[in-house]
């Protein structure tokens, strides 16, 4: 009787918790948001140009690619995996997409559509291979994607013979620096991807099972779900997002080079983890990833405006990465989420 009452009382509070959207989970993200706010306040006071509309749109542009990669990385890390190959894959997707984009005599619209298809397709294939090889043989994704890191980079260099692809259609290029109300269009695209990812992860069966796999693979398997499918899907989604990021890269920089993206995987992973997602899988949100990407972006931008030497900047970036997770830890202790 007593137990029943208890149940009903707590019932009304939070259906949202199930979907990763409770006051507590909000507080969790808010904790990271707080760190971000502190940084913003600090740089606003400390530098002249930080809080200008121009600089804000700069920052948003600058975090776009990392954000898109980090969204994909969130899927992979949530199932307890890791993807070290995104930087190389970015280069591979870009040169494939760039090659299509520069096919002569193709109308711009078709060229861009085909190039997107090609870039995303390349990402999907690489991501699929990452997922399938690690799931089929039960290998740690760390090592499989380390292999892919080399393969995709080698492939990108091979297909271009180490040459940069350039001369994309001017309108494609213009799109890369388009603004709506002072907000870069490419960033809006990234935001849409964040929203979709958030929906998929928190509202769908698919997302639920990704969290489940990150927490306890065996329980999910014994409950009748195919681990293979979900694992491959997570890596494939990450690959597709790399393809999109490659298109954004090309629109922004107007080139596709086989040597771009070196080390991007670490930035993406840092954004995801600073955003509160557990490296062991099963815990985290894509909203956290968004905040994590903002933190790293604000930091990179603010420290330059601050006039710090490059070397000091690098050291401080390292310190802040560590501080961010320490703060997150304290928040976790306080809120118990």
């Amino acid at each position, binding site marked *: 009787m007593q137990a029943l009452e208890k149940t009903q009382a707590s019932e009304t509070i939070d259906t949202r918790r199930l979907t990763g959207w409770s006051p507590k989970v909000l507080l969790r993200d808010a904790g990271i948001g707080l760190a971000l706010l502190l940084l913003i306040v600090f740089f606003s006071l400390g530098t002249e140009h930080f809080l200008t509309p121009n600089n804000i749109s700069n920052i948003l542009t600058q975090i776009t690619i990392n954000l898109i990669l980090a969204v994909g990385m969130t899927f992979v890390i949530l199932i307890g995996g890791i993807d070290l190959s995104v930087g190389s894959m970015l280069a591979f997707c870009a040169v494939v997409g760039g090659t299509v984009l520069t096919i002569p005599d193709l109308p711009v619209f078709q060229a861009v559509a085909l190039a997107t298809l090609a870039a995303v397709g390349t990402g999907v294939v690489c991501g699929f291979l990452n997922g399938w090889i690690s799931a089929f043989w039960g290998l740690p994704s760390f090592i499989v994607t380390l292999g892919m890191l080399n393969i995709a980079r080698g492939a990108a260099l091979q297909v271009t013979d180490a040459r940069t692809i350039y001369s994309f259609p001017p309108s494609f290029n213009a799109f890369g620096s388009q603004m709506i109300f002072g907000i870069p269009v490419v960033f809006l695209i990234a935001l849409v991807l964040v929203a979709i990812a958030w929906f998929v992860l928190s509202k769908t069966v698919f997302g639920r099972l990704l969290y489940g796999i990150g927490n306890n693979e065996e*329980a999910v398997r*014994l409950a009748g779900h195919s681990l293979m499918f979900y694992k491959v899907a997570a890596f494939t989604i990450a690959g597709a997002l790399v393809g999109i990021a490659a298109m954004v890269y090309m629109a922004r920089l107007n080139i596709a080079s086989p040597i771009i993206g070196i080390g991007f995987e670490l930035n993406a992973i840092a954004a995801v983890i600073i955003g509160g997602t557990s490296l062991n899988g099963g815990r985290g949100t894509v909203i956290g990833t968004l905040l994590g990407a903002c933190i790293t972006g604000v930091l990179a931008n603010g420290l330059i405006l601050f006039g710090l030497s490059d070397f000091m900047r690098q050291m401080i970036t390292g310190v802040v990465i560590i501080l961010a997770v320490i703060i997150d830890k304290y928040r976790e202790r306080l809120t118990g989420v």
Partner: protein
Amino acid sequence: MINVETVRADAAGVLTPPVLELHDVKKAFGGTKALNGVSLSVQPGEVHGLIGENGAGKSTLIKVLCGIVRPDEGAINLSGRAYAPTTPREAKANGLQVVHQEFNLLPYLSVAENIFIEHLPRNAFGVVKRQEMNVGARAALDAIGLSDIDVRWPVERLGIAHRQLVEVARALMTQSRILILDEPTATLTSRETERLFTIVNDLRSRGVSIIFVSHHLDEVFRICDRVTVLRNGETVFSRPIAETNQDELVRAMVGRKLQQQMASEMVSLARPEEALSLVQFRHPQSPHAEGISLQLHKGEILGIAGLVGSGRTELLRAIAAAELPLSGALRLEGAPVSFRSPREAINAGIGFVTEDRKEEGLILNMPIAANVTLASLSDVSRAGILDSKAEIEVTQRLGAELKLKYGGPAKNAATLSGGNQQKVVLAKWLARNPKVLLLDEPTRGVDVGAKAEIYALIRQFAERGLALLIVSSELPELMTLSDRIIVMSQHRVVGELSRPEFSEERILQYAYQGEQQQARH
């Protein structure tokens, strides 16, 4: 209500001070009051039973004693001095040894290393004296009657019962003043339990105090000198065993009287239609070509008995396709089937409650509702999009049906006590309405009250025509529930009993005969 004697007169009439005393210890986890005023006192050389429903706070109390959890309020005295351990190391230094309810073994290290993990024998250079360690481990295992495993095996290779015994052996390695055993018998069959009791008696005679947690009241009466009952985190009852009886304990635990359903009262609900049959079915570890053949009818409850390691778990796992069988045929409702993954088995209508809920049954860090709907997500979603209302409804319905004690559907499964966790696992399968339900130790770590409820539920499902295959190491449980019992030994069926033939002696006879036959080969 609280009735705690802090001292007792021993045989000579001299007052001995208690070795351990707790006064009004409290501990809350967020809103959950796990301990809400526990007082008890343990005498030197006494076996002190600690009982209570699932979630009563037994394990939490033990965690307080061994320095894992710090109490919010209350005082603890150890041999008359204030005691407030902050690390397990400190507790050990004070002579407390614990066998925890959850396993704490190192799967890739050897059995010997696990046994000696607290104090690996070393020379002056910190080098492990392996010979000494292995011999010592061997002796320790022999002492508890576990002579058929090699101390150099990695623990990974042992079954769950053997692991439990290794943990006991480890706890016995160090000389302790107080030995705490948290449900050590939950995974043991009667043979191992007997051995454990011999050891406990021996320790008692050497003046060691033992705190013994169990859901088996018969065990409590057999071995304990004194018993303390916890309910909702409070001590309700603490007195010498001779001054109480089973009924009183049960009443104290659940706060009401339980109606006992006995086997004799029940009629078989088996229908003529066949639900599941196995023909020469071989699970992956099966050493015999003939495999296992059996038939299960709709509405029938078939119990599988056997000693530890007889292959019961593996049989169930192979049927549920958790591991793929070697050979043999499976028929479901007369039609031949073969499953290549748990998914196929589940879709065909098989449910499987695993023996190890922590590793295989639950997602501890996800909400209870997510666990309940894990196997039936299509029922609570439309076009792949989850309907959280429906999820909560299902959880509430099944929660009420199973009398689940929980904070709410959105609370993580990890916040539940062991027994309530088991109910969540059951709920997960009940949500699917399977045709055949395989249950491996379904009431492991479940308290008396909940057990009776689970039994009633199992009968209800049988009434609806569900076929149930139950593996249990508790013979009374099997005899209460089953329409028919088969006995397994060394991966073979060595005997079958119908309800009128049920008796513990006969079951054990079959089980041991099987073993001896094997030994002669």
